[in-house]
């Protein structure tokens, strides 16, 4: 089994607040992540693919092509954005927790994924070095 992982970074703001709960409950649930004006992170996202290595190219995927896809599908919109206001998925009540941000990244990648690419195997999102969220293809 060969699995290739490529890491990227984007910087974005967010605020954790759900309209389903009162202001007090939001404060209790999300703590300082509920501060009204939001805050930001340098997110690190790792994208993993699995499949067969091309006998001539020696490659699982063209890293250049993967970079372009991730740039187009995710980083263009996410980098230097306010996730709550600038990313449509988080404008309608879905809270931009890193769990949900990882799911949205997966959704965008899956939508743009070229038919001749190897399988998307994982999305690993680090909000900070200490908080890391991982989705695998078994869950998708």
């Amino acid at each position: 089994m060969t699995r290739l992982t490529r890491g990227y970074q984007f910087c974005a703001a967010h605020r954790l607040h759900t309209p389903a709960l009162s202001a007090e409950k939001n404060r209790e649930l999300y703590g300082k992540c509920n501060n009204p004006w939001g805050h930001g992170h340098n997110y690190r996202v790792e994208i993993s693919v699995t499949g067969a290595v091309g006998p001539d190219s020696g490659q699982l995927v063209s890293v250049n092509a993967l970079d372009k896809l991730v740039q187009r599908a995710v980083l263009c919109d996410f980098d230097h954005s306010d996730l709550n206001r600038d990313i449509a998925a988080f404008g309608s009540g879905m809270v931009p927790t890193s769990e949900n941000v990882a799911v949205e990244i997966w959704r965008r990648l899956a939508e743009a994924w070229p038919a001749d690419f190897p399988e998307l195997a994982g999305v690993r999102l680090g909000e900070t070095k200490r908080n890391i969220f991982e989705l695998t293809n078994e869950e998708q």
Partner: protein
Amino acid sequence: MLITRRVEFSASHVCASPGLSEEENRALYGAAANPHGHGHNYALEVTLNGDPDPVTGMVFDLRELKEILQREVAGPMDHRFLNREVPPFDRIVPTTENIAAEIWRRLQPNFRGKARLSNVRLYETEDLFVDYSEAVP
């Protein structure tokens, strides 16, 4: 239980397939096809799977593991031009995928006892790494 040991080596390479033209190689590998090569500080993480020995409490002797990694990988590959000095990369392209698979082939016969080779992770940079594993009989 899994145990992982890390070793680093620095090497140069050119990614170009002899079956392709210069333009095709350039399109496929980008700057990695530059004819005189370039280099990386590679980091290798080798993971073994086994149960701790009831007497020693160890899955595998880490000093011996260090010696195996030195003999099979860091010794032959550190400060070398992979395409010219480290077979089989005179014949196959030294992509991270192919180097990881070659490291597996070199290491696997060393772990025929209770601890088995479980995974080889090779970092070309902090932002690009390959995991390689095979089912071991």
